[in-house]
């Protein structure tokens, strides 16, 4: 593990991931935002999970993995915003680079656990009002 210490619990790693992602420069578009999210999560997990990256293992290995196109979930998408759904969270990525991660329980969306504006200052939720 890069940090050389003991692994951190998932909740602490998630908080660290959110802090680091918040501090990055805002993305200008969807693809930049995804790249930012993916690289930030990989960095945190490489440093603090103690679990090697293994996307070929289908069951949980305790590591957090970023979403990708295979997890697209059109049911929760709206104009200008794509949704990627995983076991307990949904990640929304807007065309202006804004990001939003929400917890979910069953088929219901839960609270927002992370939010970041795009380069133009608009949030994911701003797309609801203007599109």
């Amino acid at each position, binding site marked *: 593990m890069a940090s050389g210490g*003991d*692994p*951190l*619990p*998932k*909740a*602490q*790693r*998630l908080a660290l*991931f959110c802090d680091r992602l918040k501090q990055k420069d805002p993305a200008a578009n969807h693809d930049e935002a995804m790249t930012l999210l993916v690289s930030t*999560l990989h960095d945190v997990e490489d440093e603090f999970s103690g679990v090697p990256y293994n996307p070929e*293992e*289908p*069951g*949980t*290995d*305790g*590591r*957090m*993995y*970023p*979403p990708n*196109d*295979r*997890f*697209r*979930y*059109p*049911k929760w998408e709206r104009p200008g915003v794509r949704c990627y*759904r*995983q*076991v*307990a*969270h949904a990640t929304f990525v807007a065309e202006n680079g804004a990001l939003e*991660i929400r917890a*979910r*329980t*069953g*088929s219901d969306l839960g609270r927002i*656990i992370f939010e970041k504006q795009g380069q133009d200052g608009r949030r994911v939720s701003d797309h609801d009002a203007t599109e």
Partner: protein
Amino acid sequence: MTPLSELAARLRKTFPDARLDFSEPAVPGGVGFLDISHSGDVLAVQWQEKWHFGVSSPEGHGYGEKPDEVYRTVDEVAARITDLLDSRRKTEPPLAVTLRELRAERRLPQTELAALLGVSQPAVSRLERHVSRMLVASLRAVVQAMGGRLVIQAHFPDGVVRQIAIDEEAAPKPEPERVMIDG
């Protein structure tokens, strides 16, 4: 009929009162989803041609964490979901956590755990490094101090899982010399 829609159809028959929310993969090779809510219990099922079925109790699941349990066939996953909903149990991720990670998850500093156990903080630190040498009764006392209940299971190659009864004799206070078995 896809494997995921076949599973949904079966579960509708078995659990007519359950709320099932089902969606096929949005892209070729993508992931399909089936959410099951029944009597207050929730299960999340993912299906992908390559990885088959993943089943999870979503509470406490980490961001982007993969499914707790994986099954290859509709028969296997339907049987498991029926068992989970009937028994109202949660899925079981095949992951072990260290005692230190468990304490951290419970947000319990070593000093507080030590106070609850009536031992010193260095004793708790030693204990966390030597779990394999602990008395079962001491481990039970530690888990109880965290607010939990210790369960020991035996898993056999034929798939049988049996819980081993632990006698209810009061757990000995995990004094330093007992916690740190190697002295």
